[in-house]
């Protein structure tokens, strides 16, 4: 048993503290602004602020104002107050889409976070640095694959006489075969689970970076004490890459709520409304039905929810320090 994992945790904690202190020079000079520094800061920020004010906030705000109007995208909008929001809460498709998003997030977030971590672990613990480099390159190369191509492949996998059903039949599981994306019972799961092995190259590299920054002494000490495998991952690796996980979690929340490509290209939100998500519904309302006002009301609600989630995340993690 040796000293047990507790020691590592403490060791780790102190290392994290040192790290955090280094990370926050500002903490020490709290609230004493030098006006010269502030001026420099504003000058540095100016290009960004001008750019986002003109080309991000202005259009976003004019769109969000549209949430309170009846607007078909061409004729002058008419002010309707909260009517669009009231409509949304009585709209069965919108409510179904919210439920779908909830399921998609609960399953999709782990899928976007865990497999990449596992692969990062596998690569990181290879002895040959050359092999590590090769594998990283392989996974990173998937950046160049257009999403349309991936979706098409999965269409061939999921269709009634597709690869998946062939595989099940060859394993003697005839009774398990389904029309995976045509059946409203399975469609949402089929599209969520699409994209095996779910390795996101960006997440993979971020984790890898986190693992790399763990002091080697921690691993050595762990090895000396015979702490290995899953135990080590749970007590050293995961806690040490926690800050990476936080960032990726926020980015994944944003990613999962804005994922429109799959419903748009693969399922059209169907069968029925089983794969309709709020962002897809928003797109459908605006682009296909010409209901911009309603669409923007949905966008506004989506934005508020995502912002709240992200802020909770950030605040929670900051408080933790």
């Amino acid at each position, binding site marked *: 048993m040796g000293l047990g994992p507790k020691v590592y945790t403490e060791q780790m904690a102190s290392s994290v503290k040192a790290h955090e202190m280094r990370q926050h020079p500002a903490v020490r000079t709290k609230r004493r602004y030098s006006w010269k520094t502030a001026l420099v800061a504003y000058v540095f920020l100016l290009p960004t602020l001008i750019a986002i004010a003109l080309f991000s906030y202005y259009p976003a705000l004019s769109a969000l104002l549209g949430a309170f109007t009846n607007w078909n*995208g061409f004729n002058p909008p008419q002010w309707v107050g909260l009517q669009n929001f009231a409509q949304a809460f009585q709209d069965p498709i919108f409510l179904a889409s919210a439920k779908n998003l909830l399921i998609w997030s609960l399953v999709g977030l782990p899928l976007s976070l865990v497999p990449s971590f596992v692969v990062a672990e596998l690569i990181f613990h290879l002895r040959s640095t050359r092999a590590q480099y090769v594998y990283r390159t392989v996974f990173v190369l998937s950046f160049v694959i257009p999403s349309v191509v991936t979706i098409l492949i999965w*269409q061939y996998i999921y269709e009634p006489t597709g690869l998946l059903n062939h595989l099940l039949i060859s394993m003697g599981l005839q009774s398990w075969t389904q*029309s995976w994306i045509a059946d409203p019972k399975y469609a949402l799961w089929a599209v969520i689970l699409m994209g095996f092995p779910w390795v996101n190259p960006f997440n993979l590299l971020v984790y890898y970076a986190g693992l790399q920054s763990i002091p080697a002494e921690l691993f050595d000490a762990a090895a000396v004490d015979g702490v290995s495998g899953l135990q080590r991952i749970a007590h050293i690796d995961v806690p040490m890459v926690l800050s990476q996980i936080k960032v990726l979690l926020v980015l994944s929340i944003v990613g999962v709520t804005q994922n429109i490509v799959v419903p748009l290209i693969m399922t059209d939100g169907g069968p029925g409304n089983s794969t309709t998500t709020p962002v897809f519904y928003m797109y459908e309302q605006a682009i296909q039905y010409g209901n911009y006002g309603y669409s923007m009301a949905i966008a506004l609600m989506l934005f508020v929810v995502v912002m709240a989630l992200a802020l909770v995340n950030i605040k929670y993690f900051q408080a933790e320090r």
Partner: protein
Amino acid sequence: MKSHGLRNKGALWMTALSLGLSAVLPVVSVNAASPPTVPKLAWKGTITMGAWVFTPTAPGQKVAPGTVRQTALLTLANEFEKMYPGIHIKFLSPNYGNDPNFIRTEAAAGQLADVWDAQYADLNSGVIPHGIAVNLAPYFKKSNPYVSGNKEWGSYMSPLGLAVSQAPNGAYYEINGDYIATAFYYNKALFKKAGISKPPVTWAQLLSDSRILKAHGIDPGAHRPYWSWWSRLFLSNFLGIPTLKQLLSFQPGNPSITPQDEVVGYQKGILNPLKNPRVMAWWPVVKELYQYWDKNVSAVPVLNAPTSAVTGSTLFNAGKVAMTYSGSWEPGLWVAGKQKPANLGAFNLPSIANTSRYATTYDSTTTVGGPSGGFQYSISTPQADQTMSQPGKFQAVLDWLRFMSSPRADQMVVNQWGVTIPTFKGSHPLPALRSLTSALSKPWYPVFGFSDVSVSAHTQIFKLFQEYINGFISFASAKQQYAQIVQQAVQQYSAQNH
């Protein structure tokens, strides 16, 4: 996103298409009737046009297999430019227009082309908001100076084209000059292999042929369950002529069944699925066919598939399925697929007279679409296209539209493509498609079952129908959901148009 083109409204024909490989036939040459007097145009400049499927192919550009090199509109443009030195007609990419979102966005910025293509359903339903296209109604009453002896531009347009392109407010936002066809196509070799010597004549035979093909290990057919095709074929038939005529009367003066007719029909109970069992009695009939046909195709949930390799057409032309139900472009694809031309056969919707106790004797085979081809052009308002506010420009653009919509021009442009038939009086279709013209004079009572009332109704009904056809929801549940969708669509329509 790509528009789904014709909205799958095609026409189904009395006579089987003669499979004369329309796509490769030369343009029928017509002598230009030289107009006696040509109006003077003060304006000079460039007229932009998004001509969609009739866009002239750029010189030197290779054409993909299965498509035709287009030159007719360019020839017409050259003639017009010669008549009016200083006016240039510029064609935009073939993908310009037709997609309502693209048109709306361009219009919102005042950047729309001067002339563009759109489907009448989008213009009438407000998906392309009113105010983007010029109402051409007043000009239809005036003469087209480029057609000798013409007194009213609208006088030679097809009554059907005029009927469908009239918006609820009475406006005409486009000219409509061609007609598209659909049919069941079958692979004679595969039929022979299953021991079937001739195509089915009744719906029961279609089902039994499908069973026989399947028993011989042949995939009988592939087609996505397009609601609006089946609804027009079956719902129109199940309602029967007296009811259809009653529906027609709800919007006086319009000789086709319009969304407004349907809305009134709903309010009177005729089209209410909860009150009239005929409205949905045909769903189980169609469902039976799809039990035999290729599930891979009927299961693809995408209506507006921007990219999908699994279609009835690809499977059929690959020789993998024995039948498909498709548009008159299919023979061209058959050739492009390097199949033996002699093996392609076509037949019309087999008789559905005995499919249900609600079935009537009305022959609905001509109801599937028709005037929803590629020759549907509109002119931008100054709000949609700022350049239209230049003094005299509208007159020039209108004259170009008049010039390119003479019967001669209609024939040149439409026949070169070879997929649809020109409909203006005085134009002649390709010999291979000649048999189709008879449909133009037949009574035309398509009932879209509310899928033409709004795009959202169209999408939702398609999805619902597909779920039912694929066996994932019961008839009772489908009925309840259909009733809800329809009720909502009717309310929305009434709110928008009154």
